[in-house]
């Protein structure tokens, strides 16, 4: 079962995740200006919300994490020396 955490300190209430989610998992709490999870059971873990969130406020737990074979480990090793 997917669990979604919203970091309330990081969420800027832009509503991008609300608009982007195809299954209406999120709603914008207008009073507090933050995203709230309303239909967690309909989340299919596409992670579009992660990609669109400008403040990386979302975290998904217990999901199938797709393989990321596109990551070039050589580039990562080089970046790790700098960052």
């Amino acid at each position, binding site marked *: 079962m997917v669990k979604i955490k919203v970091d309330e300190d990081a969420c800027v209430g832009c509503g991008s995740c609300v608009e982007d989610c*195809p*299954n209406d998992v999120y709603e914008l709490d207008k009073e507090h200006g933050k995203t709230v999870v309303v*239909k967690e*059971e*309909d989340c*299919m*873990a*596409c*992670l*579009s919300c*992660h*990609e669109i969130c400008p403040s990386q406020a979302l975290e998904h737990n217990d*999901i*199938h*994490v*797709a*393989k*990321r*074979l*596109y990551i*070039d*480990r050589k580039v990562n090793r080089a970046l790790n020396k700098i960052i």
Partner: protein
Amino acid sequence: MEIDEVRGDFKPEIIPKETQGDIDDYEEALHVLMKFIGSMSSALEQVSGRGANAIVYQAGKRMGHEAGKLMEKTDDIEKALGEMGDILGKEFYFEMWKPSDQEGYTTENNGETSVKLLFMDCVVRQALRRTGLPQKGPLCYLLYGYMVGAVEEVMDIKGKLDIDHFGPNACLKTLTIKWGGK
């Protein structure tokens, strides 16, 4: 760059015993192929416009029909999808998906049966991300054609696959089949 050259004797062989490469070689080959395929996809789109989708779709459909010949014929869509999952393997790992308020995986509408498929692992998506190309482009039509081709072959029906949503971790597609033959 220094290359570790393999030097030795070689005789023609029926079944090769060695691949002459380790995991790093496979990784490098995979990345080169991803770049090639991404480059081909964008060039195809540049030259043929929307026709690129049809070309890639046709290529996928042909592969799907070939794969479908290895499967047992059935009228049961869930069984057919299970078999296709085995053939597509880990690199195109998918599951049937339904919203929480829907009872079963399949829905009926005007003599058509629809089922939502959630593709979690997908080599096409990885190739697109490797080359910085947007999703839902011509390359996505390869899998589209593949699924339709395989379903048509196994169930002897007409099918179509629509991309409902695409994301960095999973893509939702709807497979619709029309009963009553091709």
